């Protein structure tokens, strides 16, 4: 029985459980719901949940565990002399799976009986042809041990599926029976349902946290792997980045880190003043009509996909900058060789960040109590003095938070850099030269043809880990600043 049908049956059982549980509760109260401890629906939910939660939990666990267990025992059947390393074994195992699937398909189409599928031998039948006739293409002739492994793979799967169906359905029935028997007018169904809901919420929260932990761990393991192959001093302090997939590459992070830092700096230099001034205008000076119109319009900027910003950088800003700073440009200087440069990416990224800074700062400035403004205006301060000396200092912790959030975005941004800043990793102070960032290089290292075990590919994880640590540090720093000013101001 397939997992899908088990699911359908369990769901049907839960639906029936709802109706029966409710009925039994009503019957025990003599048909008057006021005599029940909980509302009648809770008794129904209780039975449904008792069916669903254990049965589906077991089903999910089984679906995860069965392939792992079977894979492991089939692997032992492959003779050790047929493969040399783990990679070759994995190739054989994928052959086994393909043959097993092919046999399944052949049985389904009627080309083989299920007995034949279990007993055919490579010595007597050309498996490749037989399977090819039902549409399963195999790359090479099937080896004897692959066929036997595939056959036992099928057999084990069939047994596993059978046991799975029996156990899951038995558990569902047991849950049904237990909850149904407990249903009674004094049974506290509402409390039980509440507790189940609570544990579901806890489960959802822990999945989110565990996923984060998992991501970090995978980064850590691959980073450790990388540092086994490549000295960490050269990674952190190396001044050149020139990966060559043949080996012998220089993988110093500093040029990438400098590019990230430089581009983010320019982006923030654009976004912070403009965003902050826009926020001050919107929250303090703009009439409600202007505000209602301008704020959503500004937030549209935040909704533009970054690849579109990248195109804008590549096609508009880059050439425009070259026309000013480049060869034969308006200024007559030759600072800029091509359209892709730190300045191009920084400017466009700054435009992208404006709504982040302005929208958050605007909310924060609005949250400053009107009493503060009145107090200042009542002392004869002008509007701008009030904003500068009372409103902005009061809003400062939040504004710093907004800026650091924008900085995190800038550091993590990839698409604009790929299209706007070029791909050259270099250490230079000239903002009109092409540079690249950590994120852009992670993409190029992982999308190449490199072997995943080589330092050239693994370096992506070390880069990602470094980036993660930096962003984390930035966030902690932001929290610290916010807390420090809170203590002073409240």
């Amino acid at each position: 029985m397939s997992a899908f049908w088990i699911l359908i049956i369990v769901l049907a059982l839960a639906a029936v459980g709802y109706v029966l549980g409710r009925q039994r509760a009503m019957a025990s109260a003599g048909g008057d719901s006021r005599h029940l401890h909980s509302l009648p629906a809770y008794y129904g939910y209780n039975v449904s949940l008792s069916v669903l939660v254990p049965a589906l939990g077991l089903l999910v666990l089984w679906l995860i565990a069965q392939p792992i267990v079977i894979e492991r025992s089939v692997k032992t059947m492959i003779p050790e002399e047929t493969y040399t390393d783990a990679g070759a074994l994995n190739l054989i195992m994928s052959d086994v799976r393909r043959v097993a699937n092919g046999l399944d398909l052949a049985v389904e189409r009627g080309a083989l009986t299920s007995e034949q599928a279990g007993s055919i031998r490579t010595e007597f039948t050309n498996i490749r042809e037989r399977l090819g006739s039902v549409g399963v293409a195999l790359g090479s002739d099937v080896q004897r041990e692959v066929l036997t492994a595939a056959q036992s793979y099928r057999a084990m799967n069939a047994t596993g599926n059978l046991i799975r169906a029996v156990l899951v359905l038995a558990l569902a029935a047991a849950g049904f029976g237990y909850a149904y028997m407990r249903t009674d007018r004094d049974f506290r169904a509402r409390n039980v349902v509440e507790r189940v809901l609570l544990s579901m919420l806890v489960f959802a929260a822990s999945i989110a946290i565990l996923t984060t932990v998992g991501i970090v761990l995978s980064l850590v393991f691959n980073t450790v792997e990388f540092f086994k192959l490549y000295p960490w001093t050269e990674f952190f302090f190396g001044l050149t980045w020139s990966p060559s997939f043949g080996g012998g590459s220089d993988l110093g992070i500093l040029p990438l880190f400098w590019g990230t830092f430089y581009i983010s700096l320019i982006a923030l230099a654009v976004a912070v003043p403009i965003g902050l001034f826009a926020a001050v205008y919107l929250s303090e000076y703009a009439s409600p009509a202007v505000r209602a119109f301008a704020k959503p319009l500004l937030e549209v900027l935040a909704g533009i996909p970054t690849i579109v910003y990248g195109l804008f950088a590549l096609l508009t800003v880059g050439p425009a900058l070259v026309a000013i700073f480049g060869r034969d440009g308006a200024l007559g200087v030759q600072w800029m060789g091509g359209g892709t440069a730190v300045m191009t990416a920084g400017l466009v990224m700054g435009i992208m960040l404006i709504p982040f800074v302005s929208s958050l700062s605007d909310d924060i400035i609005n949250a400053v109590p009107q009493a503060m403004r009145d107090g200042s205006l009542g002392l004869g301060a002008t509007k701008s003095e009030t904003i500068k000396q009372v409103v902005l200092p009061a809003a400062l912790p939040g504004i710093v938070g907004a800026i650091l959030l924008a900085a995190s975005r800038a550091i993590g941004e990839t698409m604009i850099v790929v299209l706007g800043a070029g791909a050259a990793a270099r250490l230079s102070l000239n903002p009109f030269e092409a540079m690249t960032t950590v994120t852009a290089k992670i993409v190029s290292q992982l999308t190449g043809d490199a072997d995943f075990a080589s330092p050239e590919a693994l370096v992506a994880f070390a880069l990602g880990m470094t980036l993660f640590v930096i962003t984390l540090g930035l966030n902690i720093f932001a929290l610290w600043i916010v807390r420090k000013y809170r203590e002073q101001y409240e």
Partner: protein
Amino acid sequence: MYDAPASEQKVNQKSTKIAANKVQVFYGDTHAIKDVDVQIEDKTVTAFIGPSGCGKSTFLRCLNRMNDTIDVCRVKGEILLDGEDIYDPKVDPVQLRAKVGMVFQKPNPFPKSIYDNIAYGPRIHGLAKNKADLDEIVEKSLRRGAIWNEVKDRLHAPGTGLSGGQQQRLCIARAVATEPEVLLMDEPCSALDPIATGQVEELIDELRENYSVVIVTHSMQQAARVSQKTAFFHLGNLVEYGETGQIFTNPVDPRTESYITGRIG
């Protein structure tokens, strides 16, 4: 307007600080203040009383043009401060507010140190020549606000860390620091406990020596305790204005009597 012959002489002895003639205030389409005429004297505490929504706070905010900050608010008629119309286009509302200080219903110290709270006004208006001068202004203002002894050891602690009553006295000291001529107080004790209220009332009485004080209050006892003149507002009209003792013991208008005895309001 009520004129008591006995108190008339007293009134004439003191000069009129603020004179309002036919003041009308509109909030959008709402006519909030109707034809208010009032003469506020120098070195006197004048109390505005009346039920909620009668326009007393609105009128108070007209006296230093704080209503300018509300978009839909329009003021008609004339309000003269020392004979000059404060709604004249030549008058800078910012300058005016330095002359007519204001204390609000809820204590609203800035999120700065006690010292910086007091020094805020003097710094903006350039009242101090140097640091020593500023220190002196801060100390003098805190003394006038009757809070110097409580805060002199922690001038650089945040003003928001004080208790409610201390905060309100800090706000009064802050208003005093800009050397205003008139001090407007919009229910300054409504957020305070009785002890803090007593301290603030005592302070108001002392401030009378130097300033003209106008106080809006919901508490008739408070009006009776601190003020020399009382104005009773009802539904946007100034119903009665006169000596406080007169208003509370022998009101002329039946509405005033009803309010004071607790029948309306």
